[in-house]
């Protein structure tokens, strides 16, 4: 399970199993795993104070990490 996180310099990904902060970098192997998880039809939790991403937003994340 993952959650999006808004930061001072854009968005990161939080892996909820260990609270690891994962960057939006397609060269990061954990980000690649997150991308596969999204492609399997999963949706990350909303960032604090934000909303759950729409499917279009998820598709944009997949494109960014592919």
């Amino acid at each position, binding site marked *: 399970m993952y959650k999006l996180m808004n930061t001072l310099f854009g968005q990161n990904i939080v892996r909820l199993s260990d609270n690891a*902060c994962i960057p939006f970098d397609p060269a990061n192997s954990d980000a690649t795993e997150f991308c596969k998880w999204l492609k399997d039809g999963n949706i990350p939790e909303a960032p604090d104070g934000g909303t759950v991403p729409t499917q279009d937003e998820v598709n944009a994340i997949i494109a960014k990490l592919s």
Partner: protein
Amino acid sequence: MAYGTINVDTVTTSTQGGVLGAGNASTMKNRIINGAMVIDQRNAGASIATPNGYTLDRFRVNQTTTGKLTAQQNQGSVTPPVGFSNYLGVTSSSAYVVSAGDAYWIDQAIEGFNTADLAWGTANAKTITLSFPVYSSLTGTFGGALRNSASNRSYPFTFSIPVANTWTNISVTIAGDTTGTWVGATNGVGVYVSWGLGVGSTYNGTAGAWSAGNYISATGATSVVGTSGATFYITGVQLEVGSSATGFEYRQYGTELALCQRYYQATTGIAVPVVINIAAFVNLPVSMRASPTITSTNGTFNVLSTTSIYQSVNGSGYAGTSLTLSAEL
């Protein structure tokens, strides 16, 4: 000496006209990082009960089902081979019969920037030699493989351990792959180097030839996980250009640590002050291969780049925070 040539010293020879990065060079000769198994940032020498990923720096121990192997730096406390102080030790936890789709293996993924000059996938593909001392409680034919990033080109190889519980020096020379797609000068995986510890038929190929397959080991290789308590120890791993093994390229500790820190960093003692609305930045000692994944014992650190991370602070401070940063392949 003619203009444009260079003398390059190895352990026992001097080769006129050598090319840096080639077989006899002493700079970037060994494409393996932490081949002497000195650096263990994750575990500091402690035993890893259920390894399934990185153990000693840059070396992974992989298990289809965890619990079949344990791993540790200097496991079993045998005397390392002459010239080395450490080794990666793996021990089988049971007598497990691998099925076709099972795979238990050690590997290192070498970054494309460090293999691009091999020119694999072209007519100019260079020959390499993989060498390492190995020690096992078992005897027989063991296996391993080289594999590309897409896992669709592999070269399985075998090596023999004739005497149990004795270090045996292994040298495997492999002509470079002239076909297939190999990652060039990028931060992706250039070459996977693997040693099988019990690999099912799906991931075993015929030794001694390149083929279009995803192979981790060679057909007929001994299964370490097949014998309870069986050991497999390895150190001095070197992958170099050329058709013969030369002396191991020893590196200064600081150099080897820095090479490892491109992929993983463990830091302790980070302190963040109690202030309102600031961002506390930490500059990393080594630029990492990619923006890293961060785990923290206090609060959340965010990634700024391959060289910098930060924490947004709003009234809460921390002392003694430990961080891990991973940009592994």
